[in-house]
């Protein structure tokens, strides 16, 4: 603290118009270093306290086993072995994978169609549509899910006439998929639209002169040109669906038989911790899931590195 407080008075001498002596230059560099550290300090503290420390702590307790007789016992990777062999974990993992592999492409295609439409049409309605599609993203997931919970209801919802039970064991995954699609399609539309806006217009002007239709231009020229944005959006969505938690948790009371306490790996970890106090086992599941998402994200980021944000 003290070194830095002196910096405002010392700084002018340090950076003289013509460079100054070696001593004053070194003083200036010291001052800059001190300021730099002071500025990043709050962030660095938070990074340690709320990211590194919890990660390290989760890893540590995941290596222990808590028993009534022995207390806390170091158990190496027993919890991980147990998690990998646990049929309830496997069921949840398979479910989120199936969910991700079906819901994600559906949503990305919807987002792509919407993005191509607002890129090609410049009417007032297309501007209104852009807003309408994006608005669900601004709504809390909890409230979006509550709304759809009501819409799915056979007593207050508008779809009761269809006779479909939207929360039965067979349909509830698709119903959840619809909620996620509704909430995130507009977000992905904007991301893809931004990529489309970045394309050089000349490339398809000449195709248009050659007589290509707007649909052909959209499908054969624009879509391939934003390929990397599409891949990134798809992979990030799949990463998100692996962590599926809030939507199934909110809809759970509608049909606890269909949305079980091990419906997704995250829900299972949450239940293990807060319903059964199995903190060690829960930490192992969380850590495993976090590691998969983390490693997966980086593999994809590096694979698509040239066009990605983290260059």
């Amino acid at each position: 603290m003290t070194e830095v407080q002196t910096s405002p008075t010392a700084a002018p001498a340090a950076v003289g118009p013509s460079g100054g002596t070696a001593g004053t230059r070194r003083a200036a560099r010291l001052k800059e270093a001190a300021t730099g550290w002071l500025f990043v300090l709050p962030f660095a503290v938070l990074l340690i306290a709320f990211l590194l420390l919890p990660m390290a702590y989760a890893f540590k307790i995941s290596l222990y086993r808590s028993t009534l007789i022995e207390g806390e016992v170091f158990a190496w990777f027993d919890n991980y072995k147990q998690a990998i062999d646990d049929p309830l974990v496997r069921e949840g993992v398979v479910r989120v994978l199936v969910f991700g592999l079906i819901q994600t492409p559906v949503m990305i295609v919807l987002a792509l169609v919407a993005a191509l439409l607002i890129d090609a049409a410049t009417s007032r309605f297309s501007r209104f549509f852009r807003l309408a599609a994006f608005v669900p993203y601004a709504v809390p997931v909890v409230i979006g899910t509550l709304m759809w919970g009501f819409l799915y209801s056979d007593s207050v919802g508008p779809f009761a006439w269809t006779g479909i039970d939207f929360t039965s064991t067979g349909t509830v995954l698709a119903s959840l998929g619809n909620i996620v699609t509704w909430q995130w399609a507009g977000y992905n539309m904007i991301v893809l639209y931004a990529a489309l806006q970045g394309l050089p217009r000349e490339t398809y002007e000449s195709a248009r002169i050659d007589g290509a239709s707007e649909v052909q231009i959209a499908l054969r020229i624009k879509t391939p040109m934003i390929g990397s944005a599409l891949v990134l959006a798809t992979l990030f969505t799949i990463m998100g669906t692996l962590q599926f938690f809030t939507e199934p948790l909110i809809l759970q009371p509608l049909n606890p038989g269909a949305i079980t306490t091990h419906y997704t790996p995250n829900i299972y970890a949450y239940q293990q911790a807060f319903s059964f106090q199995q903190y060690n086992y829960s930490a192992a599941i969380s850590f495993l899931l976090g590691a998969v998402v983390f490693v997966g994200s980086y593999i994809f980021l590096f694979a698509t590195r040239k066009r990605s944000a983290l260059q």
Partner: protein
Amino acid sequence: MNLKKGSVAAHVVMGLMAIYFLLPFWWLLVAATKNNEGLFQSASLWFSDFHLIDNLKVLFEQDNGVYVTWLRNSAFYAVVSGIGSTVISALAGYAFAKLRFPGRNALFALLLGLIMVPATALVLPTYLLMSQANMVDTIWAVILPSLLNPFGVYLLRVYVADSVPEEMLEAARIDGAGEVRVFTSVALPAMKPALVTVLLFSMVASWNNFFLPLVMLSDDQLYPLTVGLRAWYMSAIMGNSGGATFNVIVTGALIAIVPLIAAFLMLQRYWRGGLTLGSVK
């Protein structure tokens, strides 16, 4: 623009999709004007007897006015976490972009390395650590973890590097300004558009946050809206008597999203800015 036929088709598709995206909002708006009987007995997409005012009265009086407390808590968490994390991200983003200090590259590499750690995986261990520090079930358990915003730091670093010219900072230094003053009076004004975007996103993220407060808080006087409404919904589905009825929950949901929709419509530019800033160029 050639082809009229294609344009009509495009607008039909956009129209259908707009109906899909807006339908739940329409339902919510209509449902919030009905009493509980109306909710269950009238056509679900059209108005019946108008009870919005009654619903609001009941909403604000239910369980000794706890909804107002939740509303206030959500606003408080959003403002404090939003402003706090923006200030912290601005300081760090600026330092990473413009100041040379030992460990800078290592720390920034660490940030990039950890930016992809999924937040949901951290909630449980953070809870356990917080409970050791006796901070569970306090406002700090919700606010402190929300102050960390690695993506905000990254965005601001990129923004500062691109749009705050070195010469401006150098000129201020030559004029005798200290490093803190260079930051507050030269860099900060130049960072304003990016700061608004980061502030908007972190406030909305905090307003929408669910998992963290769900785990951290058990005192319903500290709940934000998301956790509170879910508690009412659970209780209503289970058929507990004396709790909030469905029409009250629906009205509560409507009131909870009004500030977001308003912020969304007024600050559109910054929303889109945030999504395209640092995304695919």
